[in-house]
């Protein structure tokens, strides 16, 4: 089988599949007799990637394999194709998702403990239906609560190839027991600063570790 045909098969398959494909899956498209070695398939992928350099699309690796995708910078134009605006997710959902992603495997109770509010079963169901979260087991305590973890689809959706690519989780500052009388004084007036607007910026350093597991 000539090299050009191999390359065409790979390109065609990636565009037809409508989902990411692994090298192993690409390999299976060929008869055993014609099957190109994996190295060649990898080289083909690299070639295609290079040729797409100036195109409106690129060939990228995400958690479940390779896929063609439209470049991020084109989103303002592409989004006009659809009548509906891209969906926004509620903060409750994003916070829950963040807890599952960084702390997995977790139970619903674990999530509730950090968020300080009850997490509805609908919320967990929505996350599972989206395919972002799945039950990976049960904790061995009374009630055997389900343990949730994120899926490959979650990574695919957020353009990641592994959990280590998640944005770094800020580190907690140590709570040092600066037990000064002043701080403990309850009658003390809270110092008012000029710029006491809703400054929600965090003061954490940049040198955190990777995913907190």
């Amino acid at each position, binding site marked *: 089988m000539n090299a050009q045909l191999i390359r065409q098969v790979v390109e065609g398959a990636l565009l*037809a599949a409508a989902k990411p494909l692994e090298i192993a899956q690409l390999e299976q498209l060929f008869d055993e007799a014609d099957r190109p070695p994996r190295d060649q398939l990898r080289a083909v992928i690299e070639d295609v990637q290079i040729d797409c350099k100036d195109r409106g699309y690129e060939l990228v690796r995400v958690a479940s394999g390779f896929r063609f995708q439209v470049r*991020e910078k084109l989103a303002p134009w592409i989004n006009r194709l659809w009548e509906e605006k*891209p969906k926004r997710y509620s903060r409750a959902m994003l916070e829950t998702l963040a807890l599952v992603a960084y702390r997995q495997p977790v139970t619903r109770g674990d999530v509730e403990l950090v*968020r300080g509010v009850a997490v509805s079963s609908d919320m967990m169901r929505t996350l599972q239906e989206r395919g972002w979260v799945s039950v990976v087991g049960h904790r061995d305590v009374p009630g055997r609560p389900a343990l949730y973890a994120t899926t490959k689809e979650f990574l695919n959706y957020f*353009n990641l190839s592994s959990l280590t690519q998640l944005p770094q989780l*800020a580190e907690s500052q140590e*709570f040092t027991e*600066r037990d000064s009388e002043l701080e403990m004084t*309850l009658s003390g007036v809270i110092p008012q600063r000029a710029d006491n607007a*809703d400054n929600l910026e965090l003061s954490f350093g940049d040198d955190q570790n990777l995913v907190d597991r």
Partner: protein
Amino acid sequence: MTAKAPTENTSSGEDSLQESKSPRQPQQDEMPFAVVQGHAVSVVPKDLYIPPDALEIILEAFEGPMDLLLYLIRRQNLNILDIDVAEITRQYMGYIALMKEIQLELAADYLVMAAMLAEIKSRVLLPRLAVEEAEQEDPRAELIRRLQEYERFKQAADSIDALPRLERDIFLGTAAVPTGQLDKPHPAVDLSELLSVFGQLLRRAEMFEHHRIEFENLSTRERMSDILKRLKNQSFATFESLLTEHEGRLGVIVTFLAVMELVKESLIDVVQTEAFGPLHVKAKLI
């Protein structure tokens, strides 16, 4: 947290407007409405009008007690580590009172936090024995740890939201597969399966949701879809053209009901140029 409309103030837009002319009278004395420059304000200033609805939205914006606490701390530009429990508790209770006042259904989580704050406050107030001081943990430690933890994940949620994601920032590239040569297989579905799923869905909705599932007359619903499909490619169609002779009177009634329903849902326009003249039906412009 779910909101109930305040009974008196928001029954109509007019009422809200009227309310802006007179300051809101708090139901109970001494509960601060807000804290401005360290002073509790229990009456809304006359020049400051906050529509009751807006207030609910502000309160609903909090994801829970942790979020509210964090907001109170950040609003004063304080480090979590420097939290003044007494002051924060006071402000927190102020918000709780406010939520009660506008009859916002208060989630139990908020009350649990209130109890926790009160407990910490009392422990801070207790005189500590010099001997024990070394081992005794700062009563605020647990709260501070939880606040920090929550803040980390709040930030993580924002980071995840900012990641480029499919259907918003990036898009899956696909090419069509020419028909004939290539055939993509589809899963099989059984009609009884569909019915059973629908039945369970209705039961679930009935049991867990507050809204009612109204079972619409199927033929009217079908006719609505049918009419919409027909009007899609036409500017105007006469009402008569939507009728089919062999359906008889019932057909006319069903079609008429479907047209009325479509008008009600603002999906079509019905035009009649003169009294008793022919009715013309048109899909609304998109």
